[in-house]
């Protein structure tokens, strides 16, 4: 297989820009797609071609398989890069791509199916001897759920087999909460997910979220790019991430990384993916899910490895081998990412809108910004609230943290409420300085 000549980028925002820039470095032509609301976006301006695929509503533009595929067809793109979100984990799109001879830059259908079905992925993990949290099977009714809860014991999480990225998770502490939340979760899953099956899983309040970046080529080689700690979350959505995970016993760290490789192999995974684990206060880790896409927080791993993960995705999808072994990957220093979202932390992280003014931009050694914003940009509520990912690298965690403090102070945005101030408070807080934040950290401040 030879390298692609032209790739369609089926996304918007910073990730679309990120993919376009990697393609340009590789000498690959790019096709941007956009909705009517994104006509002035940077990804539209920077791609070699741009095609309007629909109105602002995502269901008729970025989430429309027909529109995306049709744009690939008329532009003669040989491959589709889905970014994250939207159609990134859409098995149907992968299936149609396979039928119509368009390469999907991501895992093949079967690997995506296994990764997308959390219950199936759990079973595969158990077969491989990887610990998983105690859980029920698929539940058909509230009565079945109550029965399962008696066996498992509270607190529990209600999860959707077809869910992911923290969406739809509900924590219940007793039978009464379970009864109420189960019905609501069921209705939500039926409306939003192709597979509405629900299950219960043990909830560990003081856990840390640790995930491993894996890369698997089509020849069977699998490597990891180390782990990330993404414990700082609001409403199960990550806000601050870092790599490597702080305060981890080296033997444990190595075990987590090796387990991720084992799981990727067990699931027959291909291309770039993330194996997510929960680490409890007793240092026991449990497999949660495999994300079959590039993650928002991938830059922190790139900063340690010194390679471009998007290029790796493209190379693997084109059939190339990973041209380095695990031993040749040198994870150097420490990286932190803060997500600057158009949200009001004072109002329950409600999406904020308005005309964005950029007063000052950070820079300097070890500072990276992945963003699609420009001065005067209108921030609407049509799409994801992510404005920018601010990433800093340092030889030590403390150097990266101090650089982040400086970079955040220099990142002055006006006109729209953002998460910047909250990020400043987080990185200056004692639990963060000590590297002791768990997933409940933001609830307690």
């Amino acid at each position: 297989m030879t390298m692609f000549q032209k790739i369609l980028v089926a996304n918007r925002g910073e990730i679309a820009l990120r993919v376009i820039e990697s393609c340009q470095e590789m000498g690959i032509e790019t096709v941007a797609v956009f909705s009517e609301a994104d006509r002035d976006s940077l990804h539209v301006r920077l791609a070699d071609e741009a095609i309007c695929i629909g109105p602002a509503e995502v269901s008729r533009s970025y989430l429309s398989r027909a529109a995306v595929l049709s744009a690939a067809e008329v532009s003669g793109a040989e491959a589709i890069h889905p970014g994250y979100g939207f159609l990134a984990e859409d098995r149907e799109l992968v299936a149609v791509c396979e039928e119509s001879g368009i390469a999907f830059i991501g895992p093949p259908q079967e690997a995506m199916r296994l990764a997308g079905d959390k219950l199936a992925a759990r079973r595969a993990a158990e077969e491989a001897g990887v610990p998983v949290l105690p859980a029920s099977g698929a539940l058909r009714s509230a009565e079945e759920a109550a029965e399962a809860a008696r066996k498992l014991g509270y607190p529990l999480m209600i999860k959707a087999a077809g869910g992911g990225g923290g969406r739809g998770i509900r924590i219940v502490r007793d039978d009464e909460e379970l009864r109420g939340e189960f019905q609501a979760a069921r209705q939500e899953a039926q409306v939003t997910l192709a597979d509405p099956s629900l299950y219960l899983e043990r909830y560990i309040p003081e856990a840390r979220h640790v995930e491993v970046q894996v890369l698997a080529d089509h020849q069977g080689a699998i490597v990891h790019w180390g782990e990330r700690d993404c414990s700082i979350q609001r409403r199960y959505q990550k806000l601050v991430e870092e790599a490597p995970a702080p305060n981890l016993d080296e033997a444990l760290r190595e075990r987590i990384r090796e387990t991720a490789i084992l799981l990727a192999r067990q699931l027959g995974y291909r291309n770039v993916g993330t194996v997510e684990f929960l680490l409890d206060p007793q240092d026991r880790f449990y497999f949660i899910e495999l994300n079959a896409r590039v993650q928002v927080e991938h830059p922190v791993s790139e900063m340690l490895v010194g390679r471009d993960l998007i290029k790796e995705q493209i190379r693997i999808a084109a059939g190339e081998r990973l041209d380095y072994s695990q031993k040749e990957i040198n994870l150097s220093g420490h990286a932190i990412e803060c997500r600057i979202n158009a949200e009001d932390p004072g109002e329950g992280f409600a999406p904020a809108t308005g005309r964005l003014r950029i007063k000052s931009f950070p820079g300097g050694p070890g500072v990276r910004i992945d963003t699609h914003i420009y001065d005067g940009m209108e921030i609407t509520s049509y799409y994801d609230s992510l404005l920018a990912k601010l990433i800093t690298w340092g030889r030590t965690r403390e150097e990266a943290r101090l650089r982040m403090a400086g970079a955040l102070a220099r990142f002055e945005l006006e006109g729209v409420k953002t998460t910047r101030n909250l990020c400043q408070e987080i990185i200056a807080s004692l639990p963060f300085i000590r590297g002791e934040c768990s997933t409940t950290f933001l609830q307690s401040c």
Partner: protein
Amino acid sequence: MELEEIEALLRLFERSSLTEMVVERDELRLIFRRQGGLASGETIEPARVAGEEIGPASGLVVRSPVVGTFYRCPSPDSEPFVKVGDRVHEGETLAVVEAMKVLTEVKAAEEGIVEQILVEDGQPVEYGQELMIIKPLSS
């Protein structure tokens, strides 16, 4: 143009008996149009294929409902659906746009004369792209 001015124009239009009013200034073009004639209980179709939006020419601009390939004929060796100068009735097929082997018909929103065809047969079109201009018979 200031918001106050647009509001004043809107009030002027409301008081008048006009069915349509066009105001042009510099780059801006405002069209005020009355819905009119809808009996109670009748509904407006929300997703009309052909758009009646603001365009550069005098007529109604027909826009592509999907991204795909524009075809003027129902099949390669047949006559085009319409030619410039043809009179078309409301709901008449003007062209088709093919996307992943699915054909979407482009229909006339109202009765009129085909004034311009802006896209060549077999060309790719994007969503919302201007395809034709129809001069309404009512105006």
